[in-house]
């Protein structure tokens, strides 16, 4: 025993040397461990067995593994690629711009009903009002259920309108129907006015929707693709197994981020391509700026996903967290409808959310052709969210 304690200081020295050379960044060689004086263990290969693994080999294989695991999982393909397109298709059809909405009007049956019908038919705006005669009780009931936008009850020489001020189509029906009836009855407008029609691509709901869906999709797949995948790896103890090997953690994180960028590219081409081919969307901005914004979004949400996953040990926990983070943004960030509908004092808060910044930037680039230099604030918001979550994640991240 005494012998090997004597040998200790010598051993310490060689360690110091090693650590010194490490700080200078020199590559470590086995020969350092086997200082010439010490008996070399008969190891499994010759000591000068050449280094056969290239610097980027493990990054490449980690990235490939991520992508393979993804495309071998049919559900992932569905949720990441097919679902957003189905959503766009469904919403695009449901909210397609019909040539001026037809107002659905219930006319309460009575002696004057026939005369009112007559007036409506004669009106110039006849095509935009569709009226049906119904018994009073049924008319009110169907209005309550939303089948009609307006109930018209003849009252003496005139009419009484029942409408719902909280329903835009009801408000519209009241004004259109009233105009039609008044004009048909002989009202003369005191100001001459004329109108021109414009329904160019760019202002339709689908044009608003597709960039929003793209933003939402980048958020969903970033959060699930990074956050969920990491916790799954942690729960399987695969993360621990990886860090038990000499794998560079930076390679691992880089491969994760790269896999997001690859998927981002596919998501972008699929969704925008779908909009262009099926709904004849017009992409006003340059593809380069759209690509850069999408990449910023994908990386930003990758960072947020990393943060969400930094400590969770179970996939149930992280699923809850991910939904908690995403839910407010689905509603607030203008995916399906403009956030202008929320009270103005909330707007600064909403604009500080990463998905709002991403959606706004995508819409500006795709619909208005805004160059990147015109939206530094939005890119800054994305960058800040991404960098801050990434830094916090690195602080808190648990590999084991």
């Amino acid at each position, binding site marked *: 025993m005494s012998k*090997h304690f004597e040998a200790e200081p010598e051993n310490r020295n060689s360690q110091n040397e090693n650590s010194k050379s490490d700080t200078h960044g020199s590559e470590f060689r086995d020969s350092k461990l086997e200082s010439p004086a010490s008996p070399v263990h008969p190891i499994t*290969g010759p000591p000068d067995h050449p280094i056969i*693994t290239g610097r980027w080999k493990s990054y490449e294989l980690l990235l490939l593994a991520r992508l393979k695991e993804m495309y071998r999982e049919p559900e992932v393909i569905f949720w990441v690629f097919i679902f957003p397109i189905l959503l766009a298709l469904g919403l695009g059809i449901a909210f397609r711009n019909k040539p001026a909405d037809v107002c659905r009007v219930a006319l309460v049956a009575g002696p004057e009903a026939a005369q009112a019908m007559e007036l409506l038919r004669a009106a110039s705006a006849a095509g935009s009002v569709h009226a049906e005669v119904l018994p009073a009780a049924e008319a009110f009931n169907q209005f309550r259920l939303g089948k009609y936008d307006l109930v018209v009850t003849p009252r003496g020489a005139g009419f009484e309108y029942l409408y719902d001020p909280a329903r835009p189509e009801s408000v519209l029906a009241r004004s259109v129907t009233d105009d039609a009836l008044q004009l048909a009855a002989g009202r003369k407008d005191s100001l001459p006015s004329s109108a021109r029609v414009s329904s160019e691509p760019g202002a339709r709901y689908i044009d608003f929707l597709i960039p929003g869906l793209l933003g939402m999709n980048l958020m969903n797949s970033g959060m699930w693709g990074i956050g969920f995948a990491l916790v799954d790896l942690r729960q399987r103890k695969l993360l621990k197994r990886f860090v*038990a*090997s000499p794998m560079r953690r930076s390679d691992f994180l880089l491969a994760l981020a790269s896999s997001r960028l690859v998927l981002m590219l596919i998501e972008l081409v699929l969704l925008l391509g779908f909009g262009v081919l099926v709904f004849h969307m017009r992409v006003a901005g340059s593809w380069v700026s759209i690509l850069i914004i999408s990449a910023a979004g994908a990386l930003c949400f990758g960072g947020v996903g990393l943060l969400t996953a930094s400590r969770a040990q179970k996939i149930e926990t992280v699923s809850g967290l991910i939904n908690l983070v995403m839910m407010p943004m689905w509603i607030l960030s203008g995916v399906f409808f403009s956030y202008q509908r929320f009270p103005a004092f909330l707007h600064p808060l909403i604009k500080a959310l990463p998905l709002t910044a991403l959606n706004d930037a995508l819409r500006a680039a795709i619909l208005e052709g805004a160059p990147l230099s015109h939206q530094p604030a939005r890119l800054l918001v994305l960058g800040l969210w991404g960098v801050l979550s990434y830094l916090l994640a690195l602080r808190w991240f648990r590999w084991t």
Partner: protein
Amino acid sequence: MMRTMDVAVRCRGLRKTYKGAVEAVRGLDLEIHAGECFGLLGPNGAGKTTTIEILEGLLEPTSGEIEILGNNWRTHNRQLRELLGISLQETRLAEKLTVRETLELFASFYRRPRDIGEVMEEMALTEKSGAWVGKLSGGQKQRLAAATALVANPRILFLDEPTTGLDPQSRRQLWEVIRQFQQRGGTVLLTTHYMDEAERLCDRIAIIDHGLTIASGTPSELIEQLGGHHMVEFDASGNVPGELEAWRSLPGVEAVHEEDGRVVLSVREPHETIPALLAAIQNRQKHLLHLTTRHASLEDVFVHLTGRHLREE
């Protein structure tokens, strides 16, 4: 006397306290020599996994010194990782990757990995090289986990319960691989709660209980501690329960107990006891239905030291 560099793994005064309350490891000393197969044997919850994960540099000890191949984790993390092959307890490898893809991935983490085809051959996984990990049997998955450690071309192999849940054939296959690795000069540290595994595979053993080494040495040394015991088991026609004490008076018998209807004698010298036993059976006009003798096992050592069995449910 061992020279310093012949010590592959050494730890002194190893302690691990979780959240200031649970003491998983309470001052452990180990010295594992290069080229030997060392076993940490102990019941579940004894602190084996905590110990091996500290030695693997995956857990920070609360206190204590660790040296792996003359270096420590703080200064030589990555260099040491190149030299170790590690198989954790219950790692679930990616299900949608094939066996080959999994091994290629792990090989890519090392500067000087072994040939994948060779490792698959050794672990009898060649036929499964194109199969998804999710489709493998439990035994094949465990062999793959060991293969991810071997592909590192390591100098020390750390295996945490490598054969738990394996069928006998797979266990034997894995033992063979471990022996081959050792023959090529590798050092092995494994944990197990199978005493037969420890006895057959390990050159030296530390028996761990409640975070402390309660005994260590070669399997035969440990059994020697019992006083060189042999066990004589027999079954004679018409065993009567109350009769047990009668066998105790035979020469060389130290203790008697009954197991599954057989009488088990703890014996110092079987060659003295057995003739006397046969004569006694004949005297009482009984038939001997069964007689075996065996060495006392590590299980007997554990029972002797703790009063418990290794795998008490």
